[in-house]
C-alpha cells in the first residue's frame, strides 16, 4: 500500500465519520424530544404574518453576476497553484510568465470595475 493510498484511506474514513457524527445527536434528539406537529406550529415563520404567495421567489441577477466573477477568478487562481509550487525552482523569466498571467487577471478586474459590474445596485 503506497503512501498516497494510506493518506486517502484516512481522508475517506474521516469524511465518513464526519458525516455520521453530526447525524447521531439529531437522531438522538428525535428520540428524546417530543414530536407533536400541528398545522399551526408548522407554518413558516414570517414575522407573524401569513405567507404571501410562493416561497420560492426569484431574486436579483446581481447574486448571479458575482457568482460568475467568482468562477472565473477561481479557475485562474487555481492555475497559479502549480506555478507557486514550482516557484522556488524557477528562473526569473519563468516567474515573469506567472506575473503576466496575474497581470491579465488584474486587467480583467480593472475592466469589470470600470464597467460597473462590481457595484451593488
Amino acid at each position, binding site marked *: 500500500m503506497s503512501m*498516497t493510498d494510506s493518506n486517502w484511506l484516512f481522508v475517506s474514513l474521516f469524511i465518513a465519520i464526519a458525516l455520521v457524527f453530526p447525524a447521531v445527536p439529531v437522531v438522538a434528539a428525535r428520540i428524546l424530544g417530543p414530536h407533536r406537529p400541528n398545522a399551526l406550529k408548522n407554518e413558516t415563520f414570517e414575522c407573524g404574518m401569513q405567507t404571501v404567495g410562493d416561497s420560492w421567489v426569484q431574486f436579483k441577477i446581481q447574486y*448571479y*453576476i458575482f*457568482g460568475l466573477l467568482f468562477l*472565473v477568478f477561481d479557475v485562474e487562481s*487555481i492555475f497559479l497553484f502549480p506555478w507557486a509550487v514550482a516557484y522556488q525552482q524557477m528562473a526569473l523569466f519563468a516567474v515573469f510568465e506567472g506575473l503576466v498571467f496575474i497581470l491579465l487577471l488584474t*486587467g480583467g478586474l480593472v475592466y469589470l470595475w470600470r464597467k460597473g459590474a462590481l457595484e451593488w445596485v
Partner: protein
Amino acid sequence: MSAQQIVFLVTAGVIVISAALVVTVRNLIHASLWLVITLFAVAAIYVQLEADFLAVVQVILYIGAISILIIFSVMLTRRVMADTGPQRIPQWPLAAVLALLVFGGLAYLLVQVPWPLAPNVDVSDTVLALGEAFVDPNRYVIPFEVATVLLLVALVGSISLALPERESD
C-alpha cells in the same frame, strides 16, 4: 477481486446511478444536488488514479463553484416547483438508438485500440512537475497564457450578457 477494484466499482456505480437521477428527477434543485454527488464521485475516481491535484480542483471548481452557479441560475430563472411539463421529447426512441450507437462505438474502440501505457515515471510530486511544465517555453507556456486570455474573454462576455442595462444618465 482486489480492494482497489471493489472501491472503483462502488464509485462507478454511484456515478451511474446519480447521473441517471440527474436527468430523471422532476425537481430541478434535486437534479443539481444529484449532479453534485456525481461530480464528487468523479473526484473520487481521480483520487484512485493518483491524480490528487485534479481531484481537489474538481471539488473546488465543480462542486464549490459550478454547481452553486447552477443552483443560482435555476432559482433565478424559473419557478422550479411548478414545472409540470413532459419530461420526454417525442423523438426519444431515435435519441436512444443514437445513444446506443455512440456507446457501442466507444466500447468497441476501448476494447480494440492497444492503449499505450505511459512510461513508469516517478509521480512523487505531480503538482511540481505541472508547475514546471506550465512555465517551460518548450512545453506549455503558450497554452498557460492563452488560458488566461480565454478566461478573460469568457468573463467579459458573460458579464456583458448578464449585466442589466443601465438607464443612461
